[in-house]
């Protein structure tokens, strides 16, 4: 323990996208502190959008340069490999699009500290403005989302998890309408999120006790030489799993998702439904494939149960929902289940694993864009009191505004996985990977994998029922006399819906370019 401390080497070039986003977030806080109130928004919006676009450009530069590093950056803390770069790119584009939604007037409360219905609130409303802190908070959350799946040791992963979650807890509570719901969503998300991260942390402590290190390759090495049935290891694995599965909203840890998605301001829901899921699946893959890869005989049966339960809970409970955002939340739970099928599809050969990984990455792109598009449509179907949340209010929307209703119907069909939409190829890729993995093992486990895929197809069919129900409601029901109005969408919202539509249709017709990109990103697998 003696001797001089060596200065750490940090690969600033590799980490540039991450540092840019965090740097812009810090500058955003300074703007909040020093810029006059009337100027803040006009500084924040370009700053946020430029830093996200700049981050994406830096990711592109690294991807195009070709030679990816084979060792982790920042003294083994962050792995900038193919999957990381792909996930960073997806998160940056999705969050850019979400910021365009956030940018719209009227989503966020003017003063979060004012009690709903009080004179203070009225005063803040008339003064206008609104919280501009939203922008730096979003940037911090996006930075956390990027760090979380790229972390190469569990400590960095934990820090990334918290940097991602803490701003989101706050953002959830800032809705302008129905503030009680929003505050309640914020508190529920916070208490349950903190609870789950405590589980993650205790799991990390147990793994540290077993392996003597928290770096993922170190854990893998300890597994290849150590006892595989050590209680420390098994407890640690289970608790880590709880923490990560909570974040992707897998059953039985899904309870927060409908509440939070319903209560949060819709642009923030879009950010959570897309970005957080992408990041959390990336982190889950890294822990279970890199760190605990040698233990897949232990975790695959458990994951089987979780995936099956998640798909069924998500698609069956969605049928009874009457709130549009809550329905989309249950749909997001079902999709988390489909993604878990991909997570289970491990092979003995690296080539097989790369195939599964690319299927998952492809699914993430497809689902991320469709979900942002769907929530963007939700933001512009309005009632006098805000968004038209009750499903019955959507009746007859197809007659009133065929274009908008048609777009939404298309997103729903993509969620259901109907051919010619991107969702079909996403599901197809994941299910094929799972069948291939089952065929490789053969005998009983192979049969279980086939069973899971069959269950996935059944769950998709059940899910298709409630998606189609909404479509029928929009096109074949009579509109209420005082039906919802369609707000004139801002340029940003139109851009978001168009981009989401373009990706959903484009990938549905020509999936090959995105598949190629995912294949290329996955070909090197994770750095070990």
């Amino acid at each position, binding site marked *: *323990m003696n001797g001089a401390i060596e200065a750490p080497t940090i690969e600033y070039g590799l980490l540039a996208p991450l540092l840019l986003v965090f740097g812009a977030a810090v500058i955003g806080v300074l703007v909040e502190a020093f810029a006059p109130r009337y100027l803040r928004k006009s500084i924040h919006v370009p700053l946020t959008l430029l830093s996200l676009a700049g981050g994406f450009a830096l990711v592109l530069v690294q991807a195009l340069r070709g030679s990816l590093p084979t060792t982790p950056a920042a003294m083994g803390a962050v792995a900038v490999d193919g999957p990381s770069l792909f996930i960073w790119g997806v998160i940056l584009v999705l969050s850019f699009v979400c910021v365009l939604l956030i940018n719209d007037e009227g989503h966020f409360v003017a003063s*979060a*500290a004012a*009690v*709903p219905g009080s004179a203070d609130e009225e005063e803040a409303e008339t003064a206008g403005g609104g919280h501009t802190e939203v922008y730096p908070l979003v940037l911090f959350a996006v930075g956390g989302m990027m760090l979380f799946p790229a972390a190469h040791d569990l*400590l960095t992963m*934990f*820090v990334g998890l*918290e940097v991602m979650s*803490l701003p989101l*807890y*706050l953002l959830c*509570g800032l809705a302008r309408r129905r*503030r*009680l*719901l929003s*505050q*309640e*969503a*914020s*508190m*529920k998300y*916070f*208490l349950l999120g*903190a*609870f789950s991260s*405590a589980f993650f*942390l*205790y799991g*990390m*402590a*147990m793994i*540290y*006790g077993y392996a*003597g*290190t*928290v770096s993922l390759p170190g854990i893998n090495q300890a597994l290849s030489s150590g006892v595989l049935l050590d209680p420390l290891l098994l407890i640690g694995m289970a608790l880590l799993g709880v923490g990560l599965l909570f974040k992707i909203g897998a059953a039985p840890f899904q309870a927060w998702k*409908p*509440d939070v998605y*319903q*209560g949060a301001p819709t642009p923030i829901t879009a950010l959570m439904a897309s970005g957080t899921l992408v990041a959390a699946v990336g982190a889950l893959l890294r822990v279970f494939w890199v760190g605990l890869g040698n233990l897949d005989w232990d975790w695959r049966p458990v994951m089987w149960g979780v995936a099956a339960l998640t798909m069924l809970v998500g698609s069956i409970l969605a049928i*009874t*929902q009457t709130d549009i955002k809550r329905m989309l939340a249950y749909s997001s739970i079902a999709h988390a289940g489909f993604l878990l099928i991909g997570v289970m599809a491990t092979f003995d050969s690296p080539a097989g694993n790369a195939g599964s990984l690319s299927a998952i990455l492809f699914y993430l792109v497809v689902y991320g864009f469709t979900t942002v598009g769907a929530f963007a449509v939700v933001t512009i179907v309005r009632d006098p009191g805000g968004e038209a949340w009750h499903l019955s209010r959507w009746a007859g929307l197809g007659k009133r505004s065929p274009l908008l209703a048609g777009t939404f119907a298309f997103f729903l069909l993509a969620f259901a996985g109907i051919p010619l939409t991107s969702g079909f190829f996403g599901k197809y890729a994941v299910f094929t990977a799972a069948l291939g993995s089952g065929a490789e093992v053969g005998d009983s486990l192979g049969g279980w994998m086939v069973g899971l895929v069959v269950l996935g197809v059944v769950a998709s069919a059940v899910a298709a029922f409630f998606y189609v129900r909404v479509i029928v409601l929009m096109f074949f029901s009579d509109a209420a006399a005082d039906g919802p109005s369609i707000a004139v969408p801002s340029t940003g919202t139109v851009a978001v819906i168009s981009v989401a539509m373009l990706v959903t249709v484009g990938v549905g017709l020509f999936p090959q370019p995105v598949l190629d990109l995912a294949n290329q990103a996955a070909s090197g697998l994770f750095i070990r």
Partner: protein
Amino acid sequence: MTTQYLILSGLLFAIGAMGVLIRRNAIVVFMCVELMLNACNLAFVTFARQVGNLEGQIIAFFVMVVAAAEVVVGLAIIVTIFRTRRSASVDDANLLKY
């Protein structure tokens, strides 16, 4: 020699988890989460002693910083709820369901 510390840490974690599940006041629930984090810290420090490297002790520092940040965010949220509803009970916040 480290077994007792691990047992203590496990007990603290279990007490914290039970507290989160059965206590009704949001502040107390939150304190129980903090108790769980501190149980993790104790486990980390104990294991650092056992495996003979400093990683665990360093992690404990990180956890303290994260816990402090979590307190800031958590208290802000709970105080806002309290000002609106005049109650910090997690049972009263029941508008979102089914």
